C-alpha cells in the first residue's frame, strides 16, 4: 500500500512534465525534445532562488513560483526567436531543431551553473516522514506532491476547457487556418500555449529538486520517460498524460516490490503491452 503511494508521488512529477509536453504536442505539433532541458533549467533556477534566500523555507516557496516563471521567460524567447518560424515545416525538421536547442540549453546550464552537483533542501515543514501504513515510512514531501498533483491536473483542465485561450488553442490544434481566418492571431496563441507547456516543465523541475541532486544530464532520463508517457496516453491528450504517468509510476514502484532485481523493466513492459493493443495510445489523440 505504501508502495502505491510512493509510486503515486513519482507519478505527479511525471504527469506535470508530460502534460506540458502533451499540450505542446497537441496544439503546436512540436515533438519538443528540449522539454527536458527546461525541466532541468527549472531545477537549477530553483537551486539559485532557494540559495539566494538563504536555503530555507522562504527560498523554496519563492522558487516554486519564481523558477517556473523564469523557465516560461526562457521558453518565450526560444519560441519567438526560433520555433515560430518552423511550425509549417516537417516534423523531422522540428525534431532536429528542438534536439539542437536541448544541446544548447545543456551547454548554457553548464556555463551558468557549472558542473558540480547542486542540492535543494527539503523545506522544514516537509522534512521527516509519517508512518502511513504500518511501519513503512512515507516522506512528508511526497505527501505534499500528492497534494500538488491534483491541483495542477484540475487547473490545467480548467484552462484548456473553460477559458477562452483554451478553447481557441483547442480550435487551433484542429484547424489553424480557420482560427486565423476568424481574426485571431494564431502566432500568439501558439506562443502562449508553448509557454504554458514549458512552465509545467519548469514546475516539474522545481518540485523534483528537493528529492534529487540537481545535475547536468537530468534532462535526458526524464525526456525519454515523458515521451513514452505521452505516447501511451495518446498524443496531445492531457488526461492521456495523466493515465500514462499513472501506469508508468505505478508499474515501476509495484514492479520493485514484486521483483526487485528487475524492477526497472516493468514500466517499459507496460508500455509495450499498451502499444500492442492500442497502437495510438489509450485515449483519443488529437493527431
Amino acid at each position: 500500500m505504501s508502495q502505491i503511494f510512493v509510486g503515486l508521488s513519482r507519478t505527479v512529477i511525471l504527469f506535470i512534465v508530460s502534460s506540458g509536453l502533451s499540450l505542446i504536442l497537441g496544439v503546436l505539433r512540436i515533438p519538443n525534445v528540449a522539454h527536458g532541458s527546461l525541466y532541468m533549467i527549472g531545477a537549477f533556477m530553483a537551486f539559485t532562488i532557494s540559495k539566494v534566500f538563504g536555503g530555507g523555507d522562504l527560498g523554496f516557496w519563492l522558487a516554486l513560483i519564481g523558477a517556473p516563471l523564469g523557465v516560461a521567460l526562457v521558453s518565450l524567447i526560444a519560441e519567438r526567436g526560433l520555433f515560430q518560424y518552423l511550425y509549417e515545416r516537417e516534423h523531422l525538421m522540428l525534431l532536429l531543431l528542438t534536439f539542437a536547442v536541448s544541446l544548447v540549453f545543456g551547454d548554457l546550464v553548464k556555463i551558468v551553473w557549472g558542473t558540480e552537483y547542486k542540492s535543494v533542501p527539503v523545506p522544514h515543514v516537509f522534512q521527516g516522514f509519517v508512518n502511513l501504513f504500518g511501519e513503512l515510512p512515507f516522506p512528508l514531501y511526497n505527501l505534499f506532491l500528492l497534494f500538488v498533483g491534483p491541483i495542477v491536473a484540475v487547473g490545467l483542465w480548467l484552462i484548456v476547457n473553460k477559458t477562452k485561450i483554451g478553447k481557441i488553442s483547442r480550435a487551433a490544434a484542429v484547424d489553424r487556418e480557420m482560427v486565423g481566418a476568424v481574426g485571431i492571431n494564431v502566432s500568439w496563441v501558439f506562443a502562449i500555449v508553448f509557454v504554458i507547456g514549458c512552465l509545467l516543465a519548469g514546475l516539474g523541475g522545481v518540485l523534483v529538486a528537493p528529492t534529487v541532486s540537481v545535475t547536468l544530464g537530468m534532462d535526458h532520463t526524464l525526456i525519454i520517460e515523458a515521451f513514452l508517457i505521452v505516447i501511451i496516453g495518446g498524443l496531445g491528450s492531457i488526461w492521456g498524460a495523466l493515465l500514462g504517468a499513472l501506469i508508468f509510476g505505478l508499474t515501476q514502484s509495484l514492479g520493485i516490490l514484486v521483483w526487485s532485481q528487475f524492477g526497472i523493466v516493468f514500466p517499459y513492459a507496460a508500455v509495450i503491452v499498451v502499444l500492442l493493443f492500442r497502437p495510438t495510445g489509450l485515449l483519443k489523440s488529437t493527431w
Partner: protein
Amino acid sequence: MKKSKWFSIFLVSLFGLFFMCPTSNAANTIKVGIVDTYTGPATTYTNDVLDGFKLAVGKINAKGGVLGKKIEFTTRDEKFKPDIGLAMAKELVLKEKVDILMGTINSATALAISDFVKKEKVPFLVTFSKSDKIVGEKGHRYVFGMNENALMAGRAAGIAIGKKPYMKYWIAGDDYEYGHSIANNVWENVQKVNPKSILIGQSWWKVGEADFTPYITQILAAKPDFVIVATGGSGMVNFQKAAQATGFNKKAPFFQHTAIEASTLVPQGQNAPEGVYGTANYLFYYPDTPANNAFVAEFKKAYNRFPKVGALYGYMAAQFIAEGFKKAGKVDKERFINALEGMALDSPVGKLEVRKCDHQLVLPMYYGVTKKNPKYDFLIAADIETIPGKDYMPTCDEMRKMRKYKQ
C-alpha cells in the same frame, strides 16, 4: 576570379601559420597529454584531478623542472565517449609526441587507451577509472593505476563491515559494471570475514535513477541488518536525499563507497543524512598531519575550495612523473617505467608506493560514518578507521594470476 584569389591568399596564410606555429622543442620539455572528461557530471571529479596536477606541476617547474626541463601538459576533452578518447590519445601520441599519457574517468576509454599505449610503448597513468581490469586482467607494462579500483574499494569496505555484528544483508545498486563490481566485492569479503552472514535480497536500478523512495520502502520491508548500496556519480546524492527523507539511515545502516567523500557531502550541506557508512581514499581533514594540512592549505589558496579525492590523484601523478624521470636520468619511456616500479613518495596521506608487480599505487582507505560537525557547513566523516593498502590490496600473486599479459 576574385574569389579564387582570396582563396589562395587564405591558403597561403594558413600554410604560413602552420609553419610559424611554435612546435614545442622536444629537447626542452617533458610533455604530458591528459585525456579526460571535461563536460558533464563527471567533471565534479575530473576537475580536481586536473587542478591537483596543475598545482604540483607549477611547483615542480618553479623549482627548475626535471633534468633541467619544464613539465608541459595539454588536455583533451573526451566527453565521456571512448571512441573520442581513443582518437585524442592517438593524436596526442602521434602528432603532439607526448612523453606520457594521463586520464581518464571513463573505464572504457582507459581500457581502449591502454591497448593503444601497449602498442605504441607510451606510459599511461590512469587517474580515476574504477575498473579493476585496468591493472588486473588487462594490465601490462605501460599502464599504471593511480587511484583505487572497484576490487580494492570492495575489499577494503568488506573487511571493515564484516567485522561488525551484522547478519542479514541486502545489496542494491546501479545495474552496470561499476555497481555490480563494487557490490559483489564488498559482499564476498563480508562473507570471508563473517561466514555466518546471509544475503536476504537485492535490488538493481538503472543508472541515473532519480527516485529511490520505492526501492527504500521495499528494502525496509525486508528488515535487513545492513545494506550495501553500490551507486556512483549523481546517484550518491540522490540516494542519500531519499534516505534522509524516509529516515532510512536511522532504520537500517547502509554503506556507499565514497559516501563520506567531499564530492558527495559538500553539495548537500547540512541536509545530508547522518550515520551513512562509506569509504574514501582521501579526506581533507584526515589524517590531521602537517603534510595533509599543508596540502589542503596550498590547494585552498590556489582554488578557494577544499581538495577532493581527485586532487590527491592528480597531485601524486605529477610527483611520480617528475621523480620517475629524475631517477631515469633522461627522458626515456622505458627507463621511466623501470624507475617508477617500486618507487615510493611522500604524499599528504603518507608514503605511497607504486607496486612493481601490477603498477598499482598502494593507497590507504578510510572507512567512516557521516556526521554533522560544527566546524563545517556540511557533514564530514567520523569514527574514521584507516585500512592500510597492504591489508586490502590483492596480493602480487593474485594479480599475476589475473593478468593475461605476462611480464
